[in-house]
């Protein structure tokens, strides 16, 4: 009797195993793991495709100093979606079109430390790949560079085994745009409304990018326009070198061996930002004390041993170095954020704050926080100049699309990284964690333990950085590094303080209003009594009552706390 069933595969030999092992192309990897890029469900895939195309368009426009005019068109039929995104950007040189759209991990943004929406150079080609997989059609691109007579048209797909573009058709044609790019793609998709809709994504994009104008045609043929509120482009971020703080030992060793500098002193000065000769000398002196003394200003970077690198790494952390430069990151700006919020959502109260720049792992970043509180008509009280009060009138609200929560719901989070709205994976995001870890009860809000506060409120957080630590390649959430969490929380607290002040004032107004209405209920009776006792005419009675009403409101105006 055999103890081993013959259905079992025979054990493999190392040789056989080696025969099966082969390189995995990036394209194949992501084709199998498409959730990593945000194409896991047809509904999400459609939003992600629009997002990638719009992000690219925006980056291109801004880099070329052009005010972006973007049109987005989505149609959706029986699970087959078509997305057309067109911009007025600088256009793409014909020789690059195929690679940009037909090859994963291709682009200029990965290699420099500079703030941009795109980071890895995968987004739009991944969308193309997804379309190719689900529908089988290549991307259709038209692009024209300023000054060119004709535009280039191209159909591109990806050879996933080789991660190489496959050009199907290519021609020159007349195009009415002087410059710009148009991408058309078809894919399996599902159009949906609500918090994860293209509309919400575009609306949030419009909030964070007040210089942007978008026209959106949805699958029902309805047109939605987001107007620009400023013609000023955000300042161009300056490209920087890493900041020495927080740089990891492995990365330091790698930088040392890759350096073109011939001395350690030059290396430190050249490869890092905020390190001048004096700081570099301080670092080296400190490192020498921690190592076997073989380290000197003149040591060749490529010849520094592991132990010395360790000492150098320690010395860097212990030396006082200026905070990272901040001109490499471009916050949206308090005024622009407020404008954006005012433009896209109605609220009773807005506040915004910008934190000073900070750094994590040598990467500078900056946090902006804004709060919009109170849906219009959420029972506010107004006071006019004479001190008379009235309830604000309730307005019609588009409940499902409103970015401010209902008063008994958890607050809505508007998460942004480098001006790009983050729609998915809210739970694992640093922004969500920071909001939950903030004690909102201290500011007068209701907050269940370990959860988002409950209030008619939207909390907007923007993290701008030369390198945003996303939790995955689909760029849906920010990794909660302690430095980032800390900055977000500080920003939240600052906004919450202003909110608490507003709420306190609002609450006082409400109490005052209730008191006032209570008193007013009894005024007519005082009038009747005075009339009965003093035999007043109706006119006399009314004028006394009118006067009493004024007296009451005057006394209230005097007692009224300053808003």
């Amino acid at each position: 009797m055999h103890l081993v069933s013959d259905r079992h595969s025979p054990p493999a030999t190392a040789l056989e195993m080696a025969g099966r092992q082969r390189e995995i192309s990036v394209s194949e990897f992501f084709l199998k793991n498409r959730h990593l890029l945000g194409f896991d469900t047809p509904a999400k895939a459609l939003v992600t495709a629009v997002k990638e195309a719009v992000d690219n368009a925006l980056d291109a426009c801004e880099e070329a100093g052009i005010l972006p005019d973007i049109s987005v068109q989505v149609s959706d039929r029986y699970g087959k979606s078509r997305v057309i995104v067109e911009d007025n950007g600088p256009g793409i040189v014909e020789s690059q079109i195929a690679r940009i759209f037909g090859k994963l991990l291709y682009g200029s943004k990965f290699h420099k430390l500079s703030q941009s929406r795109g980071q890895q150079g995968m987004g739009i080609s991944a969308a193309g790949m997804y379309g190719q997989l689900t529908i089988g059609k290549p991307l259709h691109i038209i692009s024209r560079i300023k000054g060119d007579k004709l535009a280039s048209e191209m159909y591109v797909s990806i050879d996933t085994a080789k991660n190489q573009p496959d050009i199907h058709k290519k021609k020159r044609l007349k195009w009415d745009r002087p410059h710009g790019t148009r991408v058309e793609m078809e894919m399996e998709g599902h159009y949906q409304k609500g918090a994860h809709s293209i509309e919400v994504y575009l609306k949030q994009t419009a909030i964070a990018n007040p210089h942007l104008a978008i026209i959106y045609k949805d699958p029902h043929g309805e047109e939605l326009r987001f107007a620009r509120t400023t013609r000023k482009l955000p300042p161009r971020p300056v490209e920087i070198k890493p900041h020495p703080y927080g740089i990891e030992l492995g990365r330091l060793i790698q930088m040392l061996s890759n350096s073109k500098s011939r001395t350690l002193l030059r290396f430190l000065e050249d490869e890092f930002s905020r390190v001048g000769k004096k700081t570099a000398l301080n670092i080296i002196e400190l490192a020498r004390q921690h190592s076997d003394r073989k380290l000197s200003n003149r040591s060749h970077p490529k010849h520094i041993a592991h132990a010395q690198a360790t000492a150098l790494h320690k010395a860097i952390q212990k030396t006082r170095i200026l905070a990272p430069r901040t001109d490499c990151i471009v916050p949206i700006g308090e005024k622009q954020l407020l404008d954006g919020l005012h433009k896209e959502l109605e609220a009773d109260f807005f506040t915004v704050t910008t934190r000073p720049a900070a750094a994590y792992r040598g990467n500078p970043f900056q946090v902006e926080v804004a709060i919009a509180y109170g849906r219009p008509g959420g029972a506010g009280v107004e006071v006019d100049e004479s001190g008379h009060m009235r309830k604000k009138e309730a307005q019609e609200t588009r409940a499902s699309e409103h970015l401010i929560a209902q008063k008994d719901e958890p607050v809505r989070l508007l998460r942004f990284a480098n001006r790009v709205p983050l729609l998915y994976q809210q739970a694992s995001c640093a922004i969500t964690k920071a909001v939950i870890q903030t004690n909102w009860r201290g500011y007068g809000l209701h907050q269940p333990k370990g959860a988002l506060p409950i209030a008619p409120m939207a909390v907007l957080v923007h993290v701008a950085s030369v390198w945003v630590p996303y939790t995955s390649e689909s760029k849906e959430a920010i990794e909660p590094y302690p430095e980032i969490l800390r900055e977000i929380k500080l920003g939240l607290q600052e906004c919450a303080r202003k909110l608490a002040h507003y709420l306190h004032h609002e609450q006082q107004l409400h109490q005052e209003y209730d008191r006032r209405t209570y008193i007013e209920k009894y005024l007519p009776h005082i009038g009747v009594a005075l009339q009965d006792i003093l035999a007043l005419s109706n006119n006399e009675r009314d004028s006394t009552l009118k006067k009493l009403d004024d007296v009451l409101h005057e006394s209230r105006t005097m007692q009224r706390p300053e808003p």
Partner: protein
Amino acid sequence: MKKSTEAAHSDLDNKTIMLIESIAKQVRANIDGGKLPDIKLPVRSLDNVTYDKAKGYFELGDARKVRTLTVTTARAFAQTLRLMATSRTMVDHNDFATKREVYYISKNWGDCRFDEQAESDAIMDDIEAMASMHGLSREQLRFYPESHGGSVAGRLTVVDRNPATGEPIEIDCANLGSGAYSIPRSVEHLTFRTDARFILAIETGGMFQRLNNHRFWETARCIIVEMGGVPTRATRRFVRLLSDRQNLPVYCFVDCDPYGFTNIYRTLKVGSGNAAHINRFLCVPRARFLGVTPQDIVDFGLEDATHKLAATDIKRAQDALQNDPFIMAHPEWIAAIKQMLQMGVRAEQQALAKWGLNYVIDDYLPRKLANVNSFLP
């Protein structure tokens, strides 16, 4: 709303109207002057009550509360004014309302209606307290008590008038047979003729009937009044007016127990602490305590007709010794109450029946009345 009745306003009525109007005018003047209106009212709490030994009754002190029109007072402010307006109208129409009726009148006042009678009673007491400061009693405001007064018999002719015509009506209290004259709710307008020497105020209806039935008042030349427990306002005011106008002493014939001393007798004589604002009209300072005293139990051999003091009796007696300014002001009363506590018994006025049903008429009262100066103050 007959002109004739308006014309027939008494001086007191005019005074009432003027008071109400002056308060309303003040409120209106405040408003027209751009100020929040207020009404000043005497504080009715016990802190603001004093016992004036010279005057012989409890009286309100000088503390005033100001009811300014604010959130907390808006309702009471409006109610006060409306109730004053009601009072004014009743004076105009020569009408009146009981406390219960006032509560119901407010039911068409909308938001400022009284939810419970306790509310309307409190506001009424406030207005009354204010009026009392100007020498006006509650009856002048036309708020009449719910309960009727006690009964009267004896050598007295009461001159009342026909409410409709104003014609005088004479009632001879010696000519009512086995019945008695029932004191009306308002007695201000009554006048009297009498040749009586004193008024005998009697605690119980039974004892009153006995004395009336045997025409005790004829031989003793007096007027007998049935209090029926703690005397009502009307009874007190009646006795007070009668005593004042005819210059008659008032002798009280009451059970020998703490309740009889401190509730029935003390209330008649000096008034009650929680109605201090009207005591000046109601109390009868010249009242004296005829009996039954603790010493009477000994003097008239009533020891075996007594009852043991209950715990509540002892508590009430001790409370009187420690807290009642009237008792504390009179050593005779302190001694009497201490004597009762020491004996540990109480006696009812009917206990005298032990010696025969008419012992009270034939022996007790004559013996007591022979020595008026020995009555407790």
